[in-house]
Structure formats: structure tokens, C-alpha cells
């Protein structure tokens, strides 16, 4: 098994006719993901290298059997595209787009909750289940199938850690980028729940960063609900307060949201926190050997 995406994923890509959307959508297809449809309003009836394009996500569901939607739509139209996906009947929506206004996401988050649709992102690299399916922009060559589930707010930092895990001779059940925005569809806790229930996942690596309190909440959840070992890494110890560090959500507000507070919260609940990406991967590999 794996989580969120896998052999049963039937993918519809909103924005498949655009430059980024076609590049990544076709890469996902080349990896083995079952790409069943593209969606671009006004371009229904066309195709992108053999993949049919529909005007609406609803048509991609009824005509092509899509169950997963990936959003590659420019920021100012992306929330509306996610809303459309939520109402279309797909089970999962993965939003890659960066720069969506956060109050739009606030409304969209609750729509997804109400509809019971799993939303990943926005501002995320997507989800990869090595050997099965890749939905998003994660470069799959750095990840082999294996027993470690990864959940992360960051893209390249995750590739760095994944590559070190691969070099250590291990691999991943899934890699989930939850995104670096202040409001994301799924938090660490949502993904930890899935890994806890996934029989293929034996250990979880969680990659956090400054801003918000998702890591602190995850620490509480791990102590109460997660039986599998968790190794964490937190980025941003040197970040000054009040400055946005690249990601919209990566900001220390007053005295809250610091890397140290997150590390302390996790360690207080018995979660080991690596000092660097390299050490984090080494701890994970070592813990896996002793399981």
C-alpha cells in the first residue's frame, strides 16, 4: 500500500494545456500514473498527447472516470478551480499552485471538509508513492519504494532528505508535500493518521519549518495516537521574527512559531529531531534497522 496516490489513482489535471501543467502532467504519466484527463474551460474536445481535455472537472469524472484532481491553475483562479474539483465528485484534490490568497483558502478548506474531499496543498510539490504513482512536481528519481513515510512542508528540502535515505539504502511508502501556506487542506496530523493506518509504512519522517503551530499539534497527536516511530526535522532556527522566509506561512509572529519551540514540543513527546537533513536521514535509517 501507500497513501493518497497509488495504482488506483485516475488523474485529471486542471491546467494540462498550460506550459507547467503539461510538463508535469506528462511527467507524471511517464512515471506510470494513470492520467485520464485534462481540464481547461473552452478547450474541451482537444487532447494533450492523447489525453482527452474536458471543459469541466465534472466531465473528467463522468466521462473519463477521474478520482483525483491536480490543480495547476494560476493563483488568482486557483481557489475557484479547487472549489470546482471539490464539487466534481473526485476523492482527492492536490493543489500545486503557489500564491493563492489565504482567505480564499479559508473558504475552500471548509468546502472540502463539508464535502469529505481530501485536499492536499496548495503551494505544495504533490504526492509520490514510489513505484506506483506520482501526482505533482516531486522528482521521482530520488525516491525508491520502501517503508518510510515522509510528510513535509517543503519541496527541495524533502528531495534532499529523500536522496539521503536512498543513499542509506532505504526508501519510501509515500512522500506527501502538505505545502508551505498558512492554510493548507491537510496538516501533519491528517497525514500522520494515514501513515499510522498504512501497513507498508514502518517509520515516519516529518519535515516542518517555522510558522504556525502545526508541528506542536502534531507532537500532541503523535504522543496520543501514533504507535510507529517518528523522526522530525525543523528548518528555520536562524530566521528572524516577523520576516517571511520564502513560504507564505514561514513566519515567526512575535514569540510564536519558532523552530526551537517546535523542536522542544516534539522532543517533549519523545520524537527525535535531527540537527540537519543529513542527520535526520541517518537517524531514520538507523531506527529502521533496529525495528
Amino acid at each position, binding site marked *: 500500500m501507500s497513501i493518497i496516490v497509488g495504482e488506483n489513482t485516475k488523474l485529471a489535471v486542471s491546467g494540462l494545456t498550460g506550459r507547467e501543467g503539461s510538463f508535469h502532467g506528462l511527467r507524471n504519466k511517464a512515471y506510470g500514473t494513470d492520467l485520464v484527463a485534462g481540464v481547461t474551460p473552452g478547450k474541451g474536445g482537444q487532447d494533450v498527447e492523447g489525453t482527452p481535455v474536458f471543459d469541466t472537472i465534472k466531465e473528467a469524472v463522468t466521462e473519463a472516470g477521474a478520482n483525483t484532481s491536480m490543480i495547476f491553475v494560476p493563483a488568482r483562479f486557483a481557489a475557484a478551480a479547487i472549489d470546482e474539483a471539490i464539487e466534481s465528485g473526485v476523492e482527492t484534490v492536490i493543489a500545486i499552485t503557489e500564491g493563492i490568497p489565504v482567505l480564499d483558502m479559508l473558504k475552500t478548506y471548509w468546502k472540502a471538509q463539508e464535502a469529505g474531499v481530501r485536499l492536499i496543498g496548495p503551494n505544495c510539490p504533490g504526492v509520490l508513492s514510489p513505484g506506483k504513482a506520482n501526482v505533482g*512536481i516531486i522528482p521521482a528519481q530520488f525516491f525508491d519504494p520502501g517503508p518510510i513515510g515522509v510528510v513535509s512542508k517543503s519541496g*527541495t528540502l524533502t528531495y534532499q532528505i529523500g536522496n539521503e535515505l536512498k543513499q542509506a539504502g532505504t526508501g519510501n511508502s509515500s512522500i506527501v508535500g502538505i505545502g508551505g501556506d498558512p492554510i493548507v487542506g491537510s496538516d501533519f496530523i491528517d497525514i500522520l493518521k494515514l501513515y499510522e493506518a498504512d501497513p507498508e509504512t514502518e517509520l515516519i519522517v516529518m519535515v516542518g519549518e517555522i510558522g504556525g503551530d502545526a508541528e506542536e499539534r502534531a507532537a500532541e497527536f503523535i504522543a496520543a495516537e501514533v504507535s510507529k516511530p517518528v523522526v522530525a526535522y525543523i528548518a528555520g*532556527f*536562524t530566521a528572524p521574527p*516577523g520576516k517571511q522566509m*520564502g*513560504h507564505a506561512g514561514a513566519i515567526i*509572529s512575535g514569540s510564536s512559531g519558532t523552530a526551537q519551540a517546535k523542536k522542544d514540543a516534539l522532543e517533549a513527546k519523545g520524537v527525535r529531531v535531527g540537527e*540537519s537533513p543529513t542527520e535526520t536521514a541517518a537517524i531514520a535509517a538507523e531506527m529502521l534497522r533496529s525495528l
Partner: protein
Amino acid sequence: MDLLEYQGKQLFAKHGIPVPSGEVADTVEEAVAAAERIGYPCAIKAQVLIGGRGKAGGIKIAKDVEEARAHADAILGMDIVGPHGEGPFRVDQVWIEGGSDIAEEYYASIILDRGEKKLLAMVSAKGGMDIEAVAAEDPDALVKRHVDPTQAFDAAAARSIAADAGLAEDALDEAAEALVRLEEVAREEDATLIEVNPLIVTAGRDVVALDSKVTIDGNALFRHQDLAEVADTVDDPHEQMAKEKGLTYVKLDGNVGILANGAGLCMSTLDVVAQAGGAPANFLDAGGGSKAEAIVNALEVITSDEKVDAILFNIFGGITRCDEIAKGIITASEQTQLQVPLVVRLDGTNSEEGRAILREANLPNMHEESTMLDAARKVVELAGSGS
């Protein structure tokens, strides 16, 4: 993006929240002229993006023209350090407003609660002081209530929060009205934080926002033309230069210049450099593309900071190919006539090819390392302790 006090108050006024009228001034002469028009007593307030201005001497009351001149002279140009060590922030502008006859000082805010995914309304009868301290000492004094995302935030809901916070009975309706309008500011202006401290009741029993702290979502500026113009001004000249070049850059205090691709990897690179005993000079995320032009721009911004003694490029190629990055580095180091040592770590897609290209170019002053930790140690060694 944070607004200055007066910019926040202009936003409040636009939405019908009572604020004292006033004028902004850049010079002592302008400030004195404004004070003369407004009359005495008047408040002269430093306009900087940080709390704790009063304690730092950035807010003064003037009783006459001599005091107005003396206070404006003292405040303009002063440096203010925030309560958590932020800054220092140089005062370039003051806001002059009529003195208020304060009977009560309350606190009101609307913030985005990231964890709960709702707007959170907070009210306290203990305004005019550090609200974090109030909440720590007397948690019951700060009433917090989430705004139901599926329902309108109406006067009845706002009034119940104000009543629970123990606001004066005869001020409840007006305070509730102000709170409803603050929530409207959040939704309509894309504000993720609005804080009014103090929200006062005057001797005449009017409710007035005497201060403002407003953060606007930078991702929503495309639909707020007026606020987008405010956002175009950045205090730090290096950050301004980066902004013009479309780079995500944050100036720090050290002497090790840093470029990485991806926000998370970049933050991690700063941390690893600090662990190796170095002091990062900046955060700079080159982004996903990282073509030659972006690298030239990045090097120009990093080296515009004269404190930089050595530079680290930490690249993990995903979609980005390291051979393209290597070519970009060669072009950039030639175009910018780089004077300080550069440590490059290339990993990921086509990293072997990228490293070969760099070795072949044999640039003076360039050092290649294969791991992030080795690269951090090397750049710290080359940068020295700074001078």
C-alpha cells in the same frame, strides 16, 4: 505585508471604524505645521512596523508648538528595537493626531487562526498594554471566539464577546459595531491580522481605534491596488533591489552570503551554516527555475551587501538540472566580477555533469563541495569571523 499605524487607520476609516483624524509628516517642519493645524494637545507617533513604540520613546504628547517641535525632532530619525529584538527600525515618518480624552482602554483583534482554519475575534477590557502579558497573567481577561466560517459575523455575536470581556455596558453596542467592521476589514481587505490596542472609550462615551496593527496577505495584493502601492516601498535597500529583480530575499546580519533553491532548503542551509559557526548574511531562494539570469541577479543582490565575505550556493536539482545551474554560475561570476570566495554544492539531477562543468571552468576563488555539511564548513572557514 504589514501596514504602518496610519495606513491601518486609513483602512479603518474606509470601513467606518472611528479613528482620530491626523496627518503624516516626514520632516520636523511638516510635523510642526500639522500640529498647528490639529491643535493641542496632540500625539506625535513614530511610524515603524513594530510594537513597543511608546516604551521606546516613540510616542509623545505635545501641549504646544515648542513641545511639538522638540518631540518631532527627537522621534524622527530615532532607531526603535522591537520587544523581541526586531529591528532596529529607523523612524522616517511621524503621525500627528489630536489628543484623545480616554476614559477606558480596551483591546480588540481579528486574526487568522492557522491551526483552526478560522478567523479568531479577541476582546479584552485590559487594553493599552502588552496583550501577550495580559493573556499570560490573567487568561480569563482575554475573551477569544472563533468566527463561524459558514455564517455572517453579526452584531449579536460581536456584542456577546464584548460583554463576556467585561466592557462597560454603555460602550457595548459601539464596541460590537467596531468589531463587526474589523471582521469586514479582514475579509474585504485580505487582512490576516488586525489589532487595535487600545480601542478606547472617550469621556464622551465614543468608541475610537487609537492604534492599529494590520497585516495584509501579500498574495492578495492583485485585488487591492491601493495597498499594492504601499507594498512597493521596502525599507532595506538590499531587499528593495531583490524585490525589483523578483527574488525572495531577506537581509540578515552575518557575513556568509547564501543562495539555495527552495524556501525549505534555504532555511535549512542558513541553519547548517550557523551550526558550523558561521553567521548567514541573507536568505535567498532562487526558486524552481534558477536559470543563468536568476543567478546573475542573485549574485548581484548578495554582493551588494558589503559585509559578505564568502558565498555559499546550495543547490539540490530536482526539475532544475545542475548542469544548467553550473553554466549559470560561470556566466554570473564573469558578469559580476565576483571578488569574494564562492562555495558551490550541487546535488540531484545531473549533478555529475554540473560538477564537471565547474571543474573544467576552473574559476578562481571557487570551491566545490559534494555535501551540504562540508559546503557549510568550507564557507564558514573562508568567511572567517568577519571584520
